[in-house]
């Protein structure tokens, strides 16, 4: 890779007619300025103008955004909702845990009123969910698992072994062969190991 140019916050990079602003930059009076200390990256996305962004070696904290798929761990359940800690946003681990809530009506897409949180999640489960709202002053991030690919991915049975999914609503313990109810995520075919 050719040596990339160093830039600091406040550096004028180019005019808005030459490039489209990406991450790490901001627009002011028709010019693009850098907002981070790092390297300037120009990428041709296929449209007419290249996208200009500033990157650092260590990525800054990413915040969960609306529509992002997050990986979280269930901390407590309640007949009305489940509280989770958000650990990963996409595939980036977070340095700090953010708190989230999965309401009872957001667990499934069908038969929302007949959901029992005790039969969908248990504390300690790892769940794939999507952010639907950043919440307001009182609440945390609101998440949903109302899709086939969202739900529990890793769960441990009451005897402590990691369970195997059998259907979209059941998982089985390989040691005791006891079936437990969970809202299971459908694994994408490309992630299954032969």
């Amino acid at each position, binding site marked *: 890779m050719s040596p990339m140019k*160093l830039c*600091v916050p406040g550096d004028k990079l180019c005019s808005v007619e030459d490039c489209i602003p990406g991450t790490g930059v*901001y627009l002011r009076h028709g010019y693009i300025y850098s907002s981070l*200390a790092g390297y300037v990256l120009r990428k041709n996305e296929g449209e007419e103008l290249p996208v200009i962004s500033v990157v650092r070696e*260590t990525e800054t904290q990413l915040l969960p955004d609306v529509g992002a798929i997050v990986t979280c761990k269930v901390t407590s359940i309640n007949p009305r909702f489940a509280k989770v800690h958000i650990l990963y946003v996409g595939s980036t681990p977070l340095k*700090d845990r953010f708190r989230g809530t999965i309401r009872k009506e957001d667990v499934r897409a069908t038969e929302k009123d007949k959901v029992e949180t005790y039969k969908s999640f248990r504390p300690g489960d790892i769940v794939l969910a999507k952010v639907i709202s*950043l919440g307001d*002053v009182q609440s945390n991030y609101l998440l949903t698992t109302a899709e086939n690919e969202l739900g529990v991915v890793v769960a441990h049975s009451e005897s402590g072994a990691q369970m195997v999914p059998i259907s979209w609503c059941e998982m089985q313990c390989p040691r005791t062969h006891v079936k437990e109810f969970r809202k299971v995520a459908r694994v994408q075919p490309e992630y299954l190991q032969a």
Partner: protein
Amino acid sequence: MAGLELLSDQGYRLDGRKATELRKVQARMGVFAQADGSAYLEQGNTKALAVVYGPHEMRGSRSRTLHDRALINCQYSMATFSTAERKRRPHGDRKSTEMSLHLKQTFEAAVMTQLYPRSQIDIYVKILQSDGGNYSTCVNAATLAVIDAGIPMRDYVCACTVGFVDETPLADLCYAEESGGVSSLALALLPRGGQIALLQMDARLHQDHLETLIEAAMTACKGVSKVLDEVVRQHLQEVSVLTGE
């Protein structure tokens, strides 16, 4: 006051500097591994350490959450050994609270908080040795720490304290000059756009001199920004050499 001349006839100050000369600025970024961003800055004999955590989820009172931007939480404190006499109350006293509010105001102007709604950025600054210009050193150290943490900012924030003696503006006051009854003005500037983030003065100054004093402060801040720029670029190059880019 007999004997102590803040500005001699030849134009030299108490420590031998000229009127517009700044003290030596030395700084290092990334001094702590566990914090998201940190910096240590010396301006003459004044030494400050700044640490930045964030952006992270709101801690403490959730009612202070801002729905569209990040909340900047600043804390200023002085080490008990930083002054000539041991300081009895390093934080919580009125001066520290006022400084913390000033720092918060300064950084809210520069940090792009709209990118991190409903989260919090913590900036903690500690003065290890105090020899005048505490606020300016804090702002400069905190700027480097915020850049080290990778939090987007519009521009550097550079600060300097200036005083007015014998019709001459003195740049970068030391403790002896500040306590010698000089009308001092502290200015925090975003150097490239020339935008003032904070201007503070609580002394008496004739209106005619205000313009000159602000001009002198802006020039001094731009001088500081050059030094900070050098430090940041050098740090970036060092880090890239280590990661093998």
